[in-house]
């Protein structure tokens, strides 16, 4: 899994749900092991702890827990890997990390609840911020 970070390319499809599940855990471990590095690059020691970031990553993964199609899981993993690589390569800026993963859960990123389903697209776009 670690070589994917250096040279990001699409891995062969998972053959079963079990394999996709294993890849998810591998990805989570890789992300967790990158956290100290990311904290260092973006100077995050005074805003967040490694364990908070770990929980955030876990909750991002858990958001997609209902997905059962291995191909979809592969696609989501690829997107996650891409995102992780962007952070590790310093392709993002500090406010991206803080906005999406530190204050994101409470403030800037809003998951639309069931009560918001009736509102117009204009309002949905208005309420949701750039971080999504």
């Amino acid at each position, binding site marked *: 899994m670690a070589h994917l970070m250096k040279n990001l390319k699409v891995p062969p499809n998972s053959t079963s749900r079990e394999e996709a599940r294993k890849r998810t*855990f*591998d990805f*989570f*471990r890789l992300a*967790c*092991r990158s956290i*100290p590095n990311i904290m260092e690059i973006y100077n995050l020691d005074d805003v967040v702890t*490694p*364990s908070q970031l*770990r*929980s955030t990553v*876990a909750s991002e*993964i*858990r958001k997609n827990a209902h997905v059962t199609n291995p191909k979809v899981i592969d696609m989501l993993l690829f997107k996650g890997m891409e995102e992780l690589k962007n952070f590790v390569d310093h392709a993002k800026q500090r406010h991206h990390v803080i906005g999406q993963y530190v204050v994101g859960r409470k403030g800037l990123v809003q998951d639309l609840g069931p009560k918001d389903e009736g509102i117009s697209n204009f309002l949905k776009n208005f309420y949701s911020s750039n971080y999504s």
Partner: protein
Amino acid sequence: MASSALRSSILRRIRIPVSQTLTLNGSTKLGSVRFMSSHDDHLDKEEVTARVLDVVKSFPKVDPAKVTPDVHFQKDLGLDSLDTVEVVMALEEEFKLEIPDKEADKIDSCPLAIEYVYNHPMAG
């Protein structure tokens, strides 16, 4: 030439008394502690247990009152598989280890975690 002459003249005057070093190494006060050695600073079992339990207790979804040295993460603490991986990663961070994936998969309870960390030569 000048430096070698200087060296030999210095070495002739600087002597470490043999008896002193012998008592230093052999004295009971220092015991078998080998300074600058990476072999003897191994963690003892109580310390490993306490630190593992601290890590598990500090996990947000865990009720600290339920944590004892022989709980199973999923059966007793109600964690799921992703939480288990998260706990194992927290342990890696705490003890400055890198647990290989195959072995990390097997760690699913406090006794196994304590056992693994205690037997790991690099745990610190």
